[in-house]
Every structure is written in C-alpha cells, then in structure tokens.
C-alpha cells in the first residue's frame, strides 16, 4: 500500500518510515503542509497519516481543505495533544480516525485496516496462496468456494506467513507481532494460534510447517 506521512519531527518520521517499509508499504514523507499538498496533487495514496502541529500551519486546517476537494483518500491523524482537549476537533473536521502518540504499531495497523475496510477494500489486497485466496483487509480465507473469517490474531499471524512464504519465523518474533508488550506470554502461546490456522488450512496446498528448533514457515505445494 502507498502511504503519505505528514510529520515535521524528522526522527519520528524516519522511525515510522522505517517501520512501514518493514511491513512492505511504500511511504512518502512530507515534513510540512506545502509538501503534503504537492504530493497529493501528483500521487494517489491509499492512506494519509497526518500530524497536527506542523511548522507551516495547523494540520486541522489542511484536513478541512482536503475534505473540501473531491479527493476521498482516508486520513488518520497522529496527535500528541491530550485527547480531552483535541479529540472532537479532528473527527468533526473529517478525519477517519486518530491515534495518540506514542502509539503501538499494531494499533496503527489495526486502525488503518479498520479505516480501509470501512472505505471498501481494493482488489489488490487479495493474495493467492496455492488454492487459498487470502483477503487481508476483509480478514478472510476463501477455500474452494467457502469463506472463513479469521479472528484478529489469526489474521495477523496469517499475514506474517502470507507476506513471505517459505521464510522461517521464530516463535519469539511471532509473539512480538501478536501480543502487546505488556502481555506476559510464553512463546508457547503462539502454538494455539498456529494450531487454529492449521485447522483452517487442512486439506489445502498451503500449510504451516514446524521447523524444529527455529520456528515455523508456510509452504505451498
């Protein structure tokens, strides 16, 4: 997916760019509103991440202007303000959602997914893995005309495997993807979710295989 990040803090912007790239997204960075307008005029984005306090103006003014144009690109506001003082403002001005800094990346992803799902997902979110059709936005697996709805953790786990078939993922890395840092979970907790995915995938050509001592990988026969 293609993101536009409007954020003036250089270090934070770099960190977010870095992270979104790890997830396999394409990101453009605009450090001010002027650049942001230039980017939007030339490129189509799936989602805009917008900071509020910017050097050349208030992100809320930009939001209002953006909503007045025909452009329907969803906007998620990144705010550092106290929610008590800020929250009504941005949603009323047409933001699709907002997230308070500092944020958990999985929360940002969850919000992006929710916003995109609400806006109606694009076809490019579907991935074919052997005889399994995976729609990451809808959170479904289509197997032989049957649709299975994945729960959130199953979906996120499946996304990891589907993003890089045949790659081996350690239990510890999978735990980091699935659980928040204040959940005190053992690595074995991941087995429950792997078990569920295996049940969904039974009889298909896509299988999650245990690599002894290393972790798991998805193999497509």
């Amino acid at each position, binding site marked *: 997916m293609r993101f536009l990040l409007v954020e003036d*803090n250089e*270090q*934070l912007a770099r*960190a*977010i760019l*870095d*992270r979104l790239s*790890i997830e396999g997204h394409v990101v453009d960075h605009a450090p001010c509103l002027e650049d942001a307008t230039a980017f939007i005029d030339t490129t189509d984005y799936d989602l805009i991440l917008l900071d509020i*306090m910017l050097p050349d103006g208030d992100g809320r003014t930009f939001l209002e202007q953006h909503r007045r144009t025909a452009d329907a690109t969803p906007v998620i506001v*990144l705010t*550092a*303000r*106290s*929610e*008590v*003082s*800020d*929250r*009504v403002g941005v949603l009323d001005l047409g933001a699709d*959602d907002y997230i*308070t*800094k*500092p*944020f*958990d*990346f*999985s*929360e940002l992803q*969850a*919000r992006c*997914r*929710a916003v995109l799902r609400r806006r109606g997902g694009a076809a490019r979110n579907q991935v074919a893995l052997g005889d399994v059709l995976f729609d990451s936005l809808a959170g479904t697996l289509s197997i032989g005309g049957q649709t299975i709805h994945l*729960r*959130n*953790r199953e979906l996120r786990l499946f996304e990891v495997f589907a993003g890089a078939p045949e790659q081996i993922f*350690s239990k*510890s*890395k999978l735990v*980091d993807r699935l659980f*928040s*840092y*204040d*959940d*005190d979970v053992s690595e074995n907790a991941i087995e429950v979710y792997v078990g569920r995915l295996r049940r969904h995938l039974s009889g298909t050509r896509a299988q999650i295989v245990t690599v002894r001592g290393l972790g798991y990988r998805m193999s497509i026969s």
Partner: protein
Amino acid sequence: MTAAINKRGSILRQLIALLLAGAAVLAVILFFVVQGFARQLAEESQDNILNASVTAILDTAAVQQGELTLDLPYSAFSMLGNLSDDRVFYAVYSDRTFLTGYSDLPQIGTPSPERPLFETVTYQGEDIRIINAARRLVSEGRLVTLTASVAQTRNGQIATLNRISQNAAALGLGFFLLTALMAYLAARSAIGPLQRLAASVSRRGPQDLRPVAAPVPAEMVPLVGALNNFMDRLTISLARSEDFIAEAAHRIRTPLATVRTHAENTLHRVERDENRASLREMIRAIDDSSRAAGQLLDHAMVTFRTDHLEEEEIDLSALAQDMVHRLGPLAELRDISMICNTPAPVVIHGDPILLQNALRNLLDNAIKYSPAEGDIEVSVTASETQAILTVRDSGAGFPVGDITELTKRFARGSNVDGIVGSGLGLTIVDEVTRAHNGALSITNNPKGTGGCVTLALPSPS
C-alpha cells in the same frame, strides 16, 4: 469551589430603613405642627370672642349723673353661646369693688385699658379661658377703673382640638405610608442597576468571559471596570493553562513516540534473545511513562474542565456506541468482542468530552484486564430519574476490599501484576462522575467473572 461569601447588611434594607426613619420623623413633626396650629387657631378665635364679649360689656358702662351704670347686653353672652354649649362666667369690678357676676371668678393680674389679659385657669373644677379687660371712666372728677372678666369653659374647644388631632394623625399616617412606598420604590430603583449587573453576570455560561458592555450608572463604573479587568486576566490565565497542557503533551509525547518506534523497529531486526528481552523491557517502560504522562495531562485537563463544566444535551447511548466503535480496533487486537447494548437514546445534560474521557478510561481498563477472546459489554439504560451506564468485562475482577481505594490517585488494584497502568483511570472516572452529580459504583460481576463499573447520572427532569 465557591467560597462562602462574607455577607453583612443589605443596601436595600439600609436605604429603606433610612428613608422610613426620615418619613416617620417628618410625619410626627407634621402631626405636631398641625395640632399646634389648630390649638393656636382655636384659642385665638375663643380669645377674640371673649374680647368682643368683654368689650360689649364695658361699652355699656357709662357715668350718668355721677353714677356708674352698666347694662349687661344679651349679645355679650349670646355670641359666646354660639360657639358651643360651654358655660359662661363673668364678673365686673369697679376699682376692686365687686359690682356684678360671679364674685369668686379669679382675677388675673391688673389689665391696662389698652391690653386685656388672657389666661387659662381652673375654676369649679373645670378649665376655663378667662379675659380680663379694663376701662377708665371719669366719675365726679375722679378716675374710676372698671374691670370686667368674662370666662368660658373649654369643652367645645377641646372637642374640636381632638377632632383636628385625629385628622392630623390620619394625615401624618397617610403621609408616612405614601413616603414609605416612595422610599421602597426609590431604593429599588437605586439598586436596580446592581441587581441587573449581578443577574447578567450570573446568567453567563462558564466560558463566557466577555467584558460587561451594558450601560451602567456612574457610581458603578469602578466596580464594572474592576470586574472586566478581572475577567480579562482570567481569560488569559485560562488560555495559558490550556495551552500549557497541550504544549506539554506535545513535548512529551513526540519524543516518546520516536523512541518507541525506533525500539520496535530494532526489535524486528535483532535476533539474540537477550537483546530482544531488553528491547521489550524498554518498550514497556516507554509505554508506562507515556501512559502516565498522558493520564496526568488528561487528569489535569479533566480537573480544569470540571471546574468550568460546559453542559449540553448528550445522547449517552450514541456516545457509548461511538466510543465502542472507536476502541474496536484496540479490542480486536486481543480478539476481545465488545457488545454495545443501547436499546434507546438516553439524553442527559453533561460535558461530552469529559464523559467520553471517562468511558474511554473504563473501556481501556476493560480491554487491558480482560483475557484474550473475552467479552466486554457496555449498556446504557434509563430509569425515571437516572441514566445508567454499565461496563462489564470478563477479566479477573476487582480485588475485594480494594474497591473503595481504587478511585484514589495512583492507587492500583493488588492483582494487576505485569499490566501497565498509571492508577489515574478510575480517579478520572470518579471526578467526571462527581462533576455530573452522579454516582460511581465498582463491583464484581455476581454471575461469573469480571468487574462491573456503573455510572449513575441524573436525568434532566
């Protein structure tokens, strides 16, 4: 918040008391003046008649062939009789020799022919008004002084005086009542501008800090000037605290966001278990401090807003649906399903931002303390007098015994090991509830596991 006002006296009462006292004094003076004047008038008219009577008697005195003759005319007494049915006495002396009349009628002094003497004396047990006049006649080459006294009881005069006194009293009372009414009206109109100012200031909303623009009388200009000045300063200081809270949040949260994102990114790259563990610890510490900073700032803002409560009509059901929707993605991350049970709109008066914040804290807690794949139920119901919002989770519940302690600042349950929290969430909920005159109750679900928090807010009548 509002300190007791040190109240002493009332301008209205003081003004009225002062004006009434003045009116009373004036009424009493009026009464005595009228009465005195009437008495004087009555006395003068009696004196005039007595004078005419005595003059008529003396006028008949003549010296005929060396003999002093006196012919008491009927008219001398009938003119007195006209006045009333008072009794009349008289006595005539010639050079101290009693001639005719009542010999025991007291003689008052020695009158000169030019000026008769008047006096009020007691005679036969009654007050009488007496005139004593003299006339000099020459008889046989000798100067004879003829003295005549005419007296009359004063019953008629006293009766008239009493009547006049009664009328004077009625006049005085009427004067007093009229003046009292005018005093009251004058006092009311004098403090009218003060009352209008007080009403217009107290009618204002909590955020309305505009200067008073309505015209005021000259005497009130210093007060209104001071008031406007005070409101100016208040506006500035309020804006400053709001800005400060927003600015502080920005300064704290942006670097924390940077550190957290970098740490998370690094965690994805490193392989060694001990490095991963310390990075995880780092992220937890960042979460801990950012949540604490956030809650502290939220708490400051909540305290600030509860002091300046901005109430409007809110549908509590819609607010709950909104917040459930808003926190949906967060609950989903842990496969927690949130059920919103709001069958009908429930309208209350309140500050939507504060109530949103309270509910957000409750749902944050519920999500945090529920096990993965648990359920959270939010319900909004209305009774006749209350709107009731309940949040039920399926977590470990509240530790028995701690329940009343939990709303204290920085207090946390004894069973929250390993879960990041600041201990301010329920304090905020409690403060918001109090600001809305509601009641917060924290219980455990009797029918199973999980905690149950209920906000009972008064419905508008």
